[in-house]
């Protein structure tokens, strides 16, 4: 494993992050660097707190200890307005889109503009239609969120996340539960947005095949620790059994197939007797 490069200050720098939920440590002394203008993937088995990590970076949760800096700003010590100012520079795509269900597609995308700007109605209309065109859903502007398929909802949410022209964008499990066509569309959009706009992109996912294709750097997280990180090629060559198991999707290995429990034989016999 190579050291995080010190030549360029990373866009997001996480040092010695500790986060506990109840008695369980979700993160134990985690260090992560997210490079500017690149696609960084955070991978790991379900339940390792990948989404929690996004919430920590965006200041929706506070860590027990450690330092998270976004563009040099210490997220955890920002006050309300400063945090909101930082969030205006961030876009986030939630797993299920999280569209506002009482507004139609157009109003959902217009929502941040209406809340944060005094732009004229024609200008808002133009901006929203441009973003909807970019995700291919200009024709769906009048639909309500309930009328959209999962893939469409996610694209609308992407248009909404982009409407304020953010510098950072976070994707929470963007590939889960999509049909191949929607999946292709989302993958292409993520890559294009990153390349054309120079967006610092963070993807949380456990989809090895897709992440291999689009991520510049990948962090593998398990049981609260960074197990490995590097480019997709570096990870493939990683000798660690755990990394091998995760990257090639083997059911059993260092991560056992069975959830820890009492002895199988004893339990069966004990219960019948």
């Amino acid at each position: 494993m190579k050291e995080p490069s010190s030549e360029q200050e990373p866009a997001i720098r996480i040092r010695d992050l500790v986060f506990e939920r109840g008695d369980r440590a979700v993160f134990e002394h985690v260090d992560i660097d997210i490079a500017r203008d690149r696609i960084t993937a955070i991978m790991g088995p379900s339940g390792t707190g990948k989404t929690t990590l996004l919430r920590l970076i965006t200041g929706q949760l506070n860590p027990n200890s450690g330092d998270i800096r976004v563009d040099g700003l210490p997220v955890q010590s920002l006050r309300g307005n400063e945090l909101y100012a930082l969030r205006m520079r961030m876009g986030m795509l939630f797993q299920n889109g999280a569209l506002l269900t009482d507004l139609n597609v157009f109003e959902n995308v217009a929502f941040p503009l209406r809340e944060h700007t005094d732009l004229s109605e024609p200008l808002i209309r133009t901006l929203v239609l441009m973003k909807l065109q970019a995700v291919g859903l200009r024709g769906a502007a009048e639909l309500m969120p309930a009328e959209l398929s999962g893939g469409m909802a996610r694209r609308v949410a992407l248009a909404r996340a982009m409407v304020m022209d953010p510098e950072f964008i976070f994707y929470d499990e963007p590939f889960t539960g999509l049909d191949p066509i929607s999946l292709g569309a989302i993958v292409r959009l993520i890559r294009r947005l990153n390349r054309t706009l120079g967006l610092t992109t963070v993807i949380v996912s456990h989809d090895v095949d897709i992440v291999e294709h689009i991520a510049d750097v990948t962090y593998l997280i398990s049981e609260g620790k960074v197990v490995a990180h590097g480019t997709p090629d570096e990870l493939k060559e990683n000798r660690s059994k755990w990394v091998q198991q995760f990257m090639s999707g083997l059911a059993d290995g260092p991560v056992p197939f069975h959830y820890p429990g009492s002895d199988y034989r004893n339990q069966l016999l004990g219960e019948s007797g």
Partner: protein
Amino acid sequence: MALSKAHIRRSRTGLAAFGAAWLFFGRVVALFPRSLLRPLLVVEQVYSLGSRTVPLVGFAGLFVGLVMALQLYGVLGRFGATATLGPIVAITLLRELGPVISALLYSGRAGTALASEIGLMRATEQLSAMEMMAVDPVRRIVAPRFAGGVIAVPILASIFSLIGMLGAWLVAVRMMGMYPGVFWGQMHQSVSFWDDFVNGIIKSVVFGLAVNLIAVYEGFTALSTADGVARATTRTVVISSLAVLALDFLLTAFMFQGT
């Protein structure tokens, strides 16, 4: 057994939740004037929480008025005091039944809707999404709903009392043949604007504050599961109903000593 660590932790989180609840209440109430700066958001809520509860409240008010007049006409007749029917109905409705029953009905119809709506927005990450868009969900979602509800409840209570009086008029005057001049005249003479009407409105404003605060709080803090949202709606009805009844006693004791 000595206090275990778990006990201490539980009571500490309990205390923290109690404090957080009061901070939340404070914020929501403090945001009330500011939410009026975006009147469209509030009007929308007055409509969905208030206007759509009018049929329910009107129906209940009508039947309460009808039954009261039926009962009182017989009882008062025994003492030859049917002339006091109008004032008794009006004062009871304005002081007690209007504010209390309409607040109870409101919590069942609109309070639950409020709690489950906000709870579902939490469960579907709409509130988190708003926070990520640098929009404060308490300001954008909770405050207008609270303001709309607080405006709606006293109006509903007035509608309840008005229709209740019409119900009593239907029974006493139209059915039993009471002289309308006596019915309205006595009512007009004995009902005091300040003592009866205004105090009733003050009561329903207090009930409106309580019911709506409980509803938005339960919704906002609901766990992000089907069970969590269900529990939030149930708690809204139970807690706000009890709160209305308890507050009613306090307010009555305070307002109507000796009148």
